[in-house]
C-alpha cells in the first residue's frame, strides 16, 4: 500500500498541467482506478483483514484527493502568475479627461453673504430688474426733478408711441425690492436682496451692469447703532478677520434719513490693500435709517415702525476679499478667468465649515 501511495504522490507532484493531473485522478481514484479497484477487493477479505485495510485505503484515497486538489491550485496559481507577468501597463499615462466646472465669484460671494445674514435672521428677497420709475425712484423719495435721478445714469426702456406712462427703468439699485417686499409682507422684517443693477457707465472701474445687495431691517426700535453692529459683524464674518471696524460718515440718500456712507478699516502697504488693519478707510457702502416717506410708500406706518437699510456692491466686496483686480472681467466669461477665480462645485460656504477654503 505504501508503494501505491508513494507512486501517486510522486506522479502528482510531477504533473505538468491540468490534463496530466486529470489522467492521474482517473488512474488512481476514478471508477476503475487502482485504488478504487483495491477497495472493491475489500469484500473478499476476512473481517480482520478488512478492519485494517478498510481505513487505510480510505485514508489513502483522501490523501490522494487532497494532493490532487493542492496540485491543481498550485498549477492555477502558476498559470495566473505567468499571465500577470505579461500584463503591464504604463501607469504614467494620463486619464480620460474630466471637465472641471466652476462657480462664478458673484454666485459664491452671494451665497457667503446669504449664509451670514441668514444667521442674523435675514431672508432673501428678490425683485424685477426692469422696474417702474415709481418703484425705482418715487417710492424711494426721489421725485421726478430730483438731481439724484440725473446722477444715477439710469437706463430707460423704450416706450411705445401712445403709451403715456413714464418709461420703465433698469433698476439702478436693489432698493425697489424694499418697497415690493414691505408692500407684500409688511413689518417687522429682515431681508437682504441681492441682484443685478444697471447704470449707464463704462470705464476702468464701472460696468453698465453690476451686482448689489440690499439690506433692510424694520421693527419697533431698530436704530442706526444696530446697523453699525450688523455691518461690523458682517464684515468680520465675510472677510474672516475678527473685529473689523467701520466708520460712519454723514451723507445723503433720498431714501434714508439720517444717511451714512460706511468705510471699513484698511491699510495700504506697498500697493497691497489689507482689510481690517491700519488706520486707512475704504468706502464700501451707503446706508441709513429708512425714510418715513419710503415706509409710507410701502404701506408701513412710519409712526409705528422704524429700521435701517443699506446697499453694498457684491462685485466690489468680492474683489476686495479675493484680490480680483478688474471689475470688467467679471462679465467677460474668459475661461482662464473663470478657472482662476472660480470656485469648486462642492465649496458651499457655510458658517460652521467656514466661508472660504
Amino acid at each position, binding site marked *: 500500500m505504501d508503494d501505491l501511495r508513494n507512486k501517486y504522490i510522486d506522479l502528482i507532484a510531477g504533473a505538468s498541467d491540468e490534463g496530466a493531473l486529470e489522467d492521474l485522478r482517473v488512474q488512481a481514484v476514478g471508477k476503475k482506478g487502482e485504488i478504487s479497484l483495491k477497495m472493491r477487493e475489500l469484500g473478499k477479505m476476512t473481517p480482520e483483514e478488512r478492519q485494517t485495510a478498510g481505513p487505510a485505503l480510505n485514508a489513502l484515497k483522501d490523501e490522494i484527493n487532497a494532493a490532487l486538489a493542492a496540485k491543481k491550485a498550485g498549477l492555477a496559481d502558476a498559470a495566473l502568475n505567468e499571465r500577470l507577468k505579461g500584463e503591464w501597463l504604463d501607469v504614467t499615462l494620463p486619464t480620460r*479627461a474630466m471637465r472641471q466646472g466652476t462657480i462664478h465669484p458673484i454666485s459664491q460671494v452671494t451665497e457667503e453673504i446669504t449664509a451670514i445674514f441668514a444667521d442674523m435672521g435675514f431672508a432673501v428677497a428678490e425683485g424685477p430688474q*426692469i422696474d417702474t420709475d415709481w418703484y425705482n425712484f418715487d417710492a424711494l423719495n426721489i421725485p421726478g*426733478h430730483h*438731481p439724484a435721478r440725473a446722477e444715477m445714469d439710469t437706463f430707460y426702456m*423704450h416706450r411705445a408711441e401712445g403709451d403715456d406712462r413714464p418709461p420703465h427703468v433698469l433698476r439702478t439699485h436693489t432698493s425697489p425690492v424694499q418697497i415690493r417686499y414691505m408692500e407684500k409682507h409688511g413689518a417687522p422684517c429682515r431681508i437682504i436682496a441681492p441682484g443685478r443693477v444697471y447704470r449707464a457707465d463704462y470705464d476702468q472701474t464701472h460696468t453698465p451692469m453690476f451686482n448689489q445687495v440690499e439690506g433692510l431691517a424694520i421693527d419697533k426700535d431698530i436704530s442706526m447703532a444696530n446697523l453699525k*453692529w450688523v455691518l461690523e459683524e458682517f464684515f468680520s464674518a465675510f472677510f474672516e478677520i475678527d473685529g473689523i471696524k467701520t466708520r460712519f460718515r454723514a*451723507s445723503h440718500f433720498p431714501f434714508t434719513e439720517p444717511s451714512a456712507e460706511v468705510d471699513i478699516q484698511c491699510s495700504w502697504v506697498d500697493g497691497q490693500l489689507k482689510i481690517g488693519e491700519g488706520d486707512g478707510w475704504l468706502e464700501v457702502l451707503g446706508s441709513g435709517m429708512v425714510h418715513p416717506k419710503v415706509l409710507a410708500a410701502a404701506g408701513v406706518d412710519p409712526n409705528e415702525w422704524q429700521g435701517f437699510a443699506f446697499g453694498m456692491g457684491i462685485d466690489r466686496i468680492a474683489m476686495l476679499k479675493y484680490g480680483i483686480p478688474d471689475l470688467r472681467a467679471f462679465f467677460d466669461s*474668459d475661461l482662464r478667468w473663470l478657472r482662476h477665480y472660480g470656485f469648486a462645485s462642492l465649496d458651499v460656504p457655510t458658517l460652521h465649515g467656514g466661508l472660504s477654503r
Partner: protein
Amino acid sequence: MKFTLSWLKEHLDTTASVDEIAETLTDLGLEVEEVVNPADKLKSFTLAKVVHAEQHPDADRLRVCKVMTNEGEKQIVCGAPNAREGITVVLAKPGDYVPGIDTTLSIGNIRGVESHGMMASERELELSDEHNGIIELPSGEVGQKFTDWLAENDPAKVDPMIEIAITPNRQDALGVHGIARDLAARGLGTLKPLAKATITGQGACPITVTIDEDAKTDGCEVFAGRLITGVKNGPSPQWLQDRLRAIGLRPISTLVDVTNFFTFDRNRPLHVFDADKVTGGLRIHRAAEGATLTGLDEKEYTFPGGQVVISDDNGVESIGGVMGGLSTGCTEATTNVFLEAAVWDRIQIAHTGRALKINSDARYRNERGIDPEYNMQGLDDATQMILDLCGGEASEVVIAGEVPDTSRAYELKPARVISLVGMDIPEAEQRRSLEALGFRLEGNMAHVPSWRHDVLGEADLVEEVARIASLTKLQGQPLPKLPGVPKAILSPLQKREQQARRTAAALGYNECVTYSFIDQKAATLFGGGDDATMLANPISSDMSHMRPQLLPGLLRAAARNQARGFTDLALFEIGQAFHGGEPEEQSLMIAGVLVGRTGPKDVHGASRSVDIYDAKADAEAVLAAIGAPAKMQIMRGGEDWWHPGRHGRFCLGPKKVLGTFGELHPKVLAEMDIKGPAVAFVIHPADIPLPKKKGATRPALVLNDLQPVERDFAFVVDANVEALTLVNAAQGADKAMISDVRVFDEFIGGSLGEGKKSLAITVRLQPTDKTLKEKDIEAVAAKIVEKVSKATGGQLRG
C-alpha cells in the same frame, strides 16, 4: 464746490488746521475730495541774497553769483538778466525738487563753473507764468522759509484749496458762508455775521421789468434789479482775482467777478446786463419754439419752447437763472450796468438746463435752490460791492413778482432722535445744533431757515442733529437675535437655483455671468429684439436689447473663448431672461452650452464631438437635482433656434415645458460665429411643480428577494418611431412585473432596408410572490411583443 482756507476764514473765526477742517467736513457729510496746499511744493525753498555777481568766463548770457544762504556763501551760475548784487532771491538747493521744471537739483557744472543750486523764477515755482527773470523779493531775511515769507506778504499764494462733494440736499453748502455755518455748528469756530448793505437808490430804475402770466407759475418767483450808472469796469482787484483763480475760475472783469464772487461766497447767483445794450424793458416769459440766443459761452442755443427767458425789444437776451446772453453781456467798456437778482423755479431750471445741455454754476445753484429770502439783501450787498469797486450811482430797485414764503416748522422729538440714531444726544444739544444751523425753535417746533429747501419733515431734523453730533462717534449695538436656531430662509426657487448651479458646476460646466443686454441681431435670433425689450438709451449698439434667452450671451462668450484658442467649452449661466418690457416679464432660466469635443484628444480615444445626448444627460441631471419628476415626456416642436430634428423638450403634458435640449440650428451657430458642433440645454426652474408632500419622511423601502429575470427583445420598426414609444409600450405589458425597460441597441438601415431600424431592449421582470417559471416569462414576452407591435407597427426581429 471749491474754496480756500483764507476764504473760509472770512466767514469762520477759527484756529483749526486744514487737516482738522477737512476731516470735520467729511464727517459732517461734506465729503472732501481734494485738498491742494500750494505750500507743500514750496516748503524746501529759502530766501537768499546775492552778494556778488560777475560775468561767466565762458558764456555771454550767464553770470556767476556768490549767494549768501542759511548754509553760508554758495556759488551759483544764473542766466537771468536781473541776477545782480544786492537782490533777495528764492533759493533752491541741490536735492530740492523744482516743480515748474519737474527736476530735482544736483550740483551742476555749467561751462566749467560749479553751480550749487538755483535762484528761481515764478514760473519755475509754478506761482505764475512770469519767467523774464528770477524772483526779487522786496523784503525778507537770508534763511527765512519762502512759504513763511509768502504767508506774511502774499498769503493767496499759499492758500490751501479744499474741494468738497455736495450731495443733492445740501444747496446751503454751495456758498462758503454755508460751509462755515456747518463747521461752526460742530464747534470748529464761530460763524461771522454777514455785513448787510443798505442802498438808497437815486431815482427810479429806467429799465422796467415784467413777468408774463404763464411764466409766473413754475417759472420766475421774483425778479429784482437796479441800474447802476457811471461805473468803471476793468480788471477786478488782486484779492478777488486770487480768490477766483484759486477755485479754478478765470477773472473777467470787476462786474462779472462780483457776480461770481456772490455765487461762490453766498450761493447767490446774479447777472449783470450792459444797460446800454438793452433796448426797452425786460420781460420774463416762456421762449417760443425755435427762438435762439448766443450765450455768454459764445454758443448758440435754440429753444425747444417753454423755457423761461428774459427778453428786451430785440428778443431773447438771457436764459433765466441759467446763462446770460453775449450781446447784452458786460465788457470792460460797460459804464451803465443792470444788476439782476431773481428766484427761479428749481424744476424749471433743471428742465431748461437739461434741454439746452448747459451746466453753468448758475444752473447748478438755481436748480438745487438758493436762499429766496436773501434775494433783496443780496441785491443790495452786490450793489455795494460794485459801487465800492467801480464807483457809479445806483437807482432804486425795480421788482416783479414776490419773494416766495418758505416758512414752515416741524416738531423736534428728542426721544425719537435718540431712538433712531441709537446715540444719547441730550435734548439741549439737539436744540443747540439746530439753532446753530439757523433753525428757530419755538417750544419743540423747529422753524426751517429759508436756505434749507431739503428740510421737509421731522426725519430731516433727526439727520441734522445726528450729522452735527457726528456719526463717527456711533457705537454699534447688537441687533436682537431671533430666538432659537436660525430657520431656513431660502425659497424653493432660490434653493433650486443654488442646486442647479452646483450641479452644473459638478458636471464640469464653468459658470458665466453675462450682461443682461445684448445686440439686436443676437436677440432677434432667440425670439427677442423687439421694441418692448429695447433700451431707450443703450450704452452701445452691442447692448441694445434685454436678452430674451441666456443662450445668446453664452454663445457670444463661447465665440470669444474660441477666438482666444479655447475650442472645447462647457459654459452655463443662471439668471433672468426677459420676454417683455414690463417688470413681471422676466423669468429665471438655467442654460448650458457644450461646444467642440468632450475633451482634448487622448490616449484612450475617449474624446469625441459633443452631441445632444451629452446635453440631454446634463439637463436630466440638473432637472433631477432641482426636483423635476422622474417621468417626463420628451416632445419636439421647440423654438426656431434649435436644430429642427435634433432637439427635445422635457414636458409634463403638451403645455408644461420644463426645459429643452438639443443641437443649435446651424444658421444660428454661423450667425454667432461658433465653430464646430454645439449643443445646449435650457431649463425653466419655476415651471417645475413643487413637491406636494410635506415633511422629510420617505416612503418605506420595499425589497423583493425573488430572483429578477432579464429578457432581450429586438424589434424592427419604421425609422421615425421613437424609442420612448416602444419603451412605454413594453412597460405597459405588465406594469406590476416589469420593473425596468432599457434600450441597448439601435441599428438603422442595412439589411433591414430603407426607412427601417431595429431597436433592442432589455426588459427586467421582478416577480413579487413566487419565482417565475418559463411559462410565466413566455406569457409576459408574448404580451410585450403584442403591445409593442400595436404601438409601433413593428415586428419582433427574427
